[in-house]
């Protein structure tokens, strides 16, 4: 009892699983894609170069076939490759684009080889050997074709591909995080079930058990949990039985005591004044004791969940009048709203009368007159109200509303009250009686500028299902 598991403020298991799976997949994807991008970039680069060279070679072959006079080279180069920067160098002479355009291109010594190099960020310089039939002797002259090929297009495509790859990686990570979240939920479902079961047990559902599991990781938890509930249930049942047994055992001697006392009371006149006083003390406390045993038994029935409603349909106004009448107090102001006067409600007369009698009793004992018993529909003035609110109000010293819940605890008397007041179970029983009717009991503030206690019982106008 009282052990509190510290609640960490870190994210939930589910979030952590989602983050973990998402992050791992993202990292994996990032590595994979980086490798792919680098590999494909070098592959695309070499592929691109050979394509450029192949193009250039076609141009070279074209030139070899059509050029027969160097003087026409300029014109042919312009018409053949209008958008390209191209030049031909033969025997130290340049045709086409100016020499400066090709930067520090190698002067010679590479004849017979293809030469490809990146000239600028977006251009590649290609130098190819070319054989032109323009020699004065009717033979051929060897020359070189210089071409600046634009590869911006390729780069753009590569960038696009790169972007696509990054987007895919992110998408994949998101999907993985989602999957992680689902996995996390699946993973934490048994935990959520256990938590729900524990909550049920806490609320008194001691028959709650977790279903068996094949999973060895869970089986231990489930088994331990079920054993724990079993133990708690057994102990609660034993406590409850003890309470019930004790109260039952007390009933027989109490019967004897009360019957004997009645005999003495009937011969009261034969007793001396001192003995009469003693008899009265005995009488008063015996009845209080009988009441306490009765309350304890009533409570043990609530604890054992065997309290049942014996409902009947009553006129609310008539019922409250009877409650006032049987309280034996003449100075209770009964105020029932016009609408509530006609309410016919389904309730267990004995239980509800007991509940209200306890409240009236408290008002008389701990409060001060005037005392009101009021009933009004909720919401007030509504033609189709859903609830009725019955209040008991007095003008006594009042209770501390912040601590009023404590007054519903068993044997918790207010700070001002002596041990000789009541059984200590009154409010606890009242709350149980009202709950059985599907209603609630609470203290409410009294109107401003006055002192006093106001306690209200709110009952649904449609009674809950009862087995009575």
């Amino acid at each position: 009892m009282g052990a509190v598991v510290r609640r960490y403020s870190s994210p939930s298991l589910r979030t952590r699983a989602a983050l973990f799976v998402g992050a791992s997949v993202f990292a994996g994807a990032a590595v994979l894609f980086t490798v792919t991008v680098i590999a494909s970039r070098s592959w695309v680069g070499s592929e691109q170069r050979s394509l450029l060279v192949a193009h250039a070679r076609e141009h070279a072959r074209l030139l070899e076939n059509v050029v027969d006079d160097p003087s026409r080279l300029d014109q042919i180069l312009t018409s053949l490759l209008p958008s390209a920067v191209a030049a031909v160098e033969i025997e130290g002479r340049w045709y086409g684009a100016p020499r400066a355009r090709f930067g520090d291109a190698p002067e010679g010594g590479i004849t017979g080889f293809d030469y490809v190099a990146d000239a600028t960020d977006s251009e590649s310089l290609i130098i190819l050997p070319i054989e032109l039939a323009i020699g004065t002797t009717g033979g051929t002259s060897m020359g070189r074709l210089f071409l600046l090929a634009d590869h911006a297009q390729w780069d753009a495509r590569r960038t696009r591909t790169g972007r696509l790859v990054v987007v895919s990686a992110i998408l994949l990570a998101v999907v993985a995080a989602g999957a992680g979240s689902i996995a996390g939920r699946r993973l934490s479902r048994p935990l959520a079930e256990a938590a729900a079961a524990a909550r049920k047990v806490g609320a008194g559902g001691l028959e709650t058990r977790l279903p068996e599991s094949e999973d060895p990781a869970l089986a231990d938890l489930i088994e331990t949990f079920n054993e724990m509930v079993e133990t708690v249930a057994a102990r609660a049942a034993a406590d409850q039985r003890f309470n019930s047994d004790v109260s039952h055992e007390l009933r027989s001697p109490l019967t004897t005591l009360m019957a004997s006392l009645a005999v003495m009371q009937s011969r009261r006149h034969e007793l001396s004044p001192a003995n009469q006083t003693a008899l009265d003390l005995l009488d008063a406390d015996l009845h209080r004791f009988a009441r306490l045993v009765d309350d304890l038994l009533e409570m043990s029935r609530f604890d054992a969940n065997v309290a049942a409603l014996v409902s009947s349909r009553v006129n609310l106004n008539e019922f409250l009048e009877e409650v006032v009448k049987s309280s034996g107090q003449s100075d209770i102001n009964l105020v029932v709203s016009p609408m509530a006067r006609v309410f016919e409600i389904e309730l267990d007369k004995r239980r509800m009368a007991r509940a209200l009698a306890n409240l009236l009793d408290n008002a008389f004992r701990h409060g001060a007159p005037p005392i009101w018993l009021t009933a009004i529909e909720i919401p007030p003035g509504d033609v189709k109200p859903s609830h009725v609110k019955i209040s008991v109000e007095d003008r006594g010293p009042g209770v501390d509303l912040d601590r009023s819940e404590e007054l519903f605890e068993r044997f918790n008397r207010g700070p001002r009250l002596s041990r000789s007041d009541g059984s200590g179970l009154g409010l606890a029983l009242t709350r149980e009686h009202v709950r059985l009717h599907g209603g609630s009991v609470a203290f409410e503030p009294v109107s401003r500028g006055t002192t006093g206690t106001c306690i209200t019982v709110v009952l649904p106008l449609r009674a809950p299902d009862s087995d009575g």
Partner: protein
Amino acid sequence: MVEDDPRIRSSVRLALESADFSVTECHTGEDALELLNHENPDLVLIDIMLPGIDGFEVCRRLRETSDVPVIMVTARNGKEDTILGLEAGADDYVTKPFDTDELCARIRALLRRATNAYATPHGWRTTHRTFGDLEIRPDEGRVLRAGSEVKLTKTEFRLLCELAAAPDKVFSRETLLDRVWGYGYFGDGRLVDVHVRRLRMKIEPDPGNPRYVVTVRGLGYRLDN
């Protein structure tokens, strides 16, 4: 008085005697049934928890031959004991620890009814009334169904007479409790329900589908003309 606890027996006996009742006691159900063969009490007080045959059984066997008023003494005010006691044929019940004044009041109410069962209110005393094949003869304390006598306990008879005093009028449980048992508003309505059920078993052609003693939902009972 059938009670196995000697202390309760003595003290309750003293209390009853000081209220001017004469008491014969026995402490087992078997003794009680034997005693009832040659004694003719005005009222029987039976504790449920008895060695040997229990209070319910004593009451059931007693009812086979007698319509003497019976008060059950239950140790629990739980639902089952009360209902079982009434089903067994008890007329009323008290719960331990009972107030002896309260017990005396219950006894007097039952005795008044038993000796006076036929003096129903409203001056209706001698007239025989007929409802279908049912004939009520208050002066003779008899009810005939299709000409043959139906054996009712005094409480059942009184209940029927109350209903028959104003045919077609709806009687609330509270009214019947007051008139037949002398209980106030907070009396146990199940007393009425169980006795109506027992009455139906005896006078209705089809108790599950009553023709005479009709339930008016939420209000009470009525005797149909």
